[in-house]
Structures are given as structure tokens and as C-alpha cells.
């Protein structure tokens, strides 16, 4: 059965967006990412104009992240305090990023900066997560064997750790079991918000590694907290896109969210059966596959030399 999408001005078989939503929702529930970096290019491949694809994707992420946050909240995996600090920083960073993009566009370098930021960030984040998770899994195996023959010693804090501990406004994040200066999540949220605005994505795939490696939060709390933060970011984006650009296609969003809300729940259930390191490796692999796809797009002669205006 086909449905006409009134804002995208095209027609689509209902199973395509529902299936797409299911897959991306699954990733969302599993890893705590919005999935915009996967969904938007796939929607464009289905013939949806790029501006409508990006805005409508935000709308469906609102549903998927509500579903995912709710499911994680029920099992105690959302650190609301940390989420609010990150959100405050992300909001400020997003505003700065939008201004930076305006300047870059005026200079004519925007496209180059966006694409290179995408490739570098995805490559670095994916590569680091993959290697670190493999290393961590091996270390645990080694520790298991060593525990029998020796006693564990005290771990020496790193220089970065010592610097972070010396910052003012130290506060305890009970749910995550960590203590940080309030400035740390605000600043890191700001950095992710800035990069997300430059790259035109929600920033989940950047926020998750920041929470895991810099804020030292447990992986399962990271997923729930990331979804909580993404929910608010996407509410703002959806509303602004609908109000100012009229690019949200509600019919498409409903089809996507039918799949994504179900997928998010399945992802949460599946995530409970996987270990933190296994989750990180899977996410790293997906990020690396997207990086390779982007590199190929940048280097292989495109089939069409002209495209619709707007979008990245």
C-alpha cells in the first residue's frame, strides 16, 4: 500500500519507512543514539528531499527517544541530573555552532568543513571505541586469570583525572556513580552541541563516547541518559523546522515512528542481554561502516553531478 507524503510531495510504500524506523529504532534503544546519521541518508535514497528527510527524522527521533527513555527510566538507567547539565551545555554549543555555520557559509567553505568534520569525527570515535573495547575485553580476561595469582593494586589517577577533580563546583551524580565538577558535563555538552550543529546531526554518536570515556559513566546509564538528552534536542529541532522551514512531513514521521518506537523497545530488551563492551564494539562497527561509506562517497565519481538545493 502506498501513501502520499504531503510535505515531501512524493508517494512511498508504507513498509519502507516502517521497516527503516524499526531498524534505526533498534539501534537507538540498543546504543542510545538518535540514528539521524543513518536515517537521513537512507530517506534521501528513498527519494525524500534532503531538507524534509532531516527535519522529519528529528520528529520520529522524538517518538523513538521518548519510548527508549521511558523504557530505560523504568529500569533505572537514566541519570536526569547529568542529562540536564549536558543538555544546558548542548543548547549553548548548538547556538554557537549555528553561528559558526553562518560564518562558514558566507565564506563558502561550509560544505568542506561539514564533510571533513563528519569523516574525522566518525573515524576517530568509531576507531577509538572499537580498539578500546577490544582492549578492555582482553584486559578483563587477563585480570580474571591474574586475580588468582596476585592482589589488585591501587590505580593511579591520570593527569586529566587530577585536573578534572581540581575544578570547582564538584557534585555527585548518584545514578552514574561518579563525581565531577558541574562545569565538565556543561562544557562537554557544549562541545558536542557545537559539532552536532556543524554536522547537522543530533549528536548521539558523539555524546555516547563522551559519557563513556570522559565522564566515566556506566554504559547502560549512558544509553538511557543519552536518549533523554536527544529527546529534548529533537523536540526543539522538530518544532523550529516545522515553524520556520515547513519541512516536517508528519505522515512520513508517523510511518517512521511506528517502526522506531517498537524498534527502540526491542533494542532496550536486546541491550540488557549484551555486555557494555559488546555494545560499544557493535556501535563502533556501525560508526566505522558509515565512515567508510562517506569516504567512498567523497572519492568515487557521483552518478549525478547535480542535486537538489538545501541540506548538507
Amino acid at each position, binding site marked *: 500500500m502506498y501513501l502520499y507524503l*504531503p510535505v515531501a510531495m*512524493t508517494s512511498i510504500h508504507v513498509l519502507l519507512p516502517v521497516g527503516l524506523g524499526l531498524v534505526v529504532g533498534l539501534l537507538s534503544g540498543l546504543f542510545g543514539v538518535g540514528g539521524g546519521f543513518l536515517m537521513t541518508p537512507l530517506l534521501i535514497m528513498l527519494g525524500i528531499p534532503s531538507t524534509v528527510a532531516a527535519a522529519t527524522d528529528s520528529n520520529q527521533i522524538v517518538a*523513538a527517544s521518548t519510548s527508549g527513555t521511558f523504557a530505560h527510566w*523504568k529500569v533505572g538507567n537514566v541519570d536526569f541530573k547529568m542529562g540536564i547539565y549536558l543538555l544546558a551545555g548542548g543548547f549553548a554549543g548548538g547556538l554557537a555552532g549555528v553561528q559558526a555555520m553562518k560564518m562558514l557559509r558566507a565564506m563558502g567553505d561550509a560544505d568542506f568543513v561539514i564533510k571533513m568534520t563528519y569523516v574525522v569525527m566518525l573515524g576517530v570515535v568509531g576507531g577509538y571505541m572499537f580498539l578500546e573495547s577490544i582492549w578492555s575485553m582482553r584486559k578483563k580476561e587477563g585480570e580474571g586469570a591474574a586475580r588468582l595469582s596476585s592482589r589488585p593494586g591501587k590505580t593511579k589517577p591520570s593527569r586529566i583525572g587530577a585536573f578534572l577533580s581540581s575544578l570547582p563546583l564538584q557534585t555527585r551524580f548518584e545514578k552514574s556513580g561518579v563525581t565531577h565538577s558541574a562545569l565538565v558535563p556543561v562544557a562537554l555538552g557544549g562541545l558536542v552541541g557545537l559539532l552536532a550543529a556543524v554536522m547537522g546531526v543530533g549528536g548521539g554518536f558523539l555524546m555516547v563516547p563522551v559519557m563513556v570515556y570522559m565522564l566515566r559513566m556506566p554504559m547502560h546509564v549512558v544509553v538511557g541518559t543519552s536518549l533523554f538528552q536527544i529527546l529534548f534536542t529533537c523536540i526543539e529541532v*522538530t518544532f523550529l523546522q516545522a515553524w520556520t522551514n515547513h519541512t516536517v512531513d508528519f505522515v512520513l*514521521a508517523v510511518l517512521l515512528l511506528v517502526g522506531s518506537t517498537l524498534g527502540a523497545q526491542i533494542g532496550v530488551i536486546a541491550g540488557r542481554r549484551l555486555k557494555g563492551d559488546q555494545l560499544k564494539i557493535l556501535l563502533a562497527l556501525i560508526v566505522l561502516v558509515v565512515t567508510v561509506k562517506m569516504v567512498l562517497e567523497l572519492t*568515487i565519481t557521483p552518478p*549525478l*553531478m547535480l*542535486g537538489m538545493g538545501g541540506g548538507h
Partner: protein
Amino acid sequence: MKKSSLLCMPFFVLAFVLAAGGILPSSTAQAQLSAAANHGNIKIGFFYHGDAISVSGVSDPGAELIVKMSSPETHQTLRKKGKTAGVLWMNAGTLAFAHVPNVYYMKCSSRPEGLLSRQDLCKNMIGYQAMEDHAEVKPMADGQKHRWFSEFLKYKESCRLYRVSDEGVRRMPGGGRQAYQAVFEWPYQAPPGDYQVTVYAVKAGSIIDQATCSVHAETAGLARRLTELAMKHGAIYGALSVLIAIAAGFAVGLIFGKGGGAH
């Protein structure tokens, strides 16, 4: 009256009687070209997935026919790809194509380039070459127009907004006239608006007649109401989109919660 004229008189009378009875073909009496589309008004509803438009009519017998369906000329700006640093393919600015239709479909009974002079083709915007000659592309370096217009055609064909075929007009001669029919698969990608169908009858290298009819495509029902809400009341539309998405997320969460999804 001259004697020769008087001798010819019975022949003229006979010819008139035969022509009136439809026995002899008469170009003046039967060259009246007609055109009509089966769908003058396309309703783009919730379950719309394109349409089939049949253009039919009668023409002078033996005439070759060109049936063209297009939207009004417009101005389109597209992003062009180019190499940055000699290696990376990126968006390298925009190109503005002026005096080109957004939608252009054409079917013919024979190859138009073999029927009409380039001048006639250009004058009537028949075929891609005519469109290229007529279009303005900016900014454009000398000698580059053909290359980028070819890319423009490739892009439009990939969007199913342009299609040109040297066949597809069925001619059915009979009764001293020629009925014809051309069926177009109307793409769902074609936006709402007014489209003009023009039929050219060609004989001996020139257009002997032309007829037009129009096709109007408009959104209807729920699709129309949603479009109007999105375009005219963006804030309400945005707020509703957000609220419904949150409600859907919670609803699915509750359903899964009752099913024992928690730890």
C-alpha cells in the same frame, strides 16, 4: 467563363460530393486536430501513487503526431558537484537553470528530429535539444552549457520529472480521419499545479495544426488539510507533530511495560 473551366465543373461537383460523404480525404475538412485528456483534474489524495493520463483525439490522416505535456517554464537552482583539492567530490556551488519546465513528458509517432527543422523544434520547445537552446544556465563558462544541461536532464530523468520518447503515439486511421492516443504514466513526483498538453500534427516537414488541453493536479482530502496546516500554521503543526510523537513513544513504552519488558 472559359471553356476549360466548364469542362472541369462536373469533376469539382463530384469531388465535393465524395468529400462530403467521406470517400475522398480532404485536408481542409478533416485536418481539425483535437486533443483531450482523460483526467483533466488529478486529485492527489492520501493513497495517491501517480496516475495514467490518456491523451486522445483526431487528426488529419497520415499526419505524424507529437504529444507534449509540460509545466510552465520556471527557474530552478541546483547544487553542482565538483572536486575539492583534486580528490574529494563535494558540492561546488549552485547552477541556476532558467526558462525550463519542472515537468516535461513527450511522446511521438516518429522521431521529431526527422519530422521538423531545428528551428521549428526550438520555436515549439519540442525535445531536449530545443529546451537546451532555449534555457539559460548561470553562472556558466563558455563551452560548458551542453555538459551541464546534459547533467540537468540526467537529474530530472532520475526524479521521473522528464521523459522523452520517439514512440508511444498510437494512430488509428479510418473513416477519412485518424484517431490517436498517447498514454502517459503520470509520476507521483510531479507536484500539484497546472500542466499543458500540446499535440502537434506534422506533415511534409511542417506543423499543419496544433491543439491543446490542460491538466490540473491538486491535493485533496486529508493530504490537502495537512499541507495547508504545515504551510499556513507551522507552529501549530510543529507542536502537534511533537506532541503526537511523544504520545506514541509513551504508548508503545506502556504497552511493552505491561508485557513484562522491564527487568
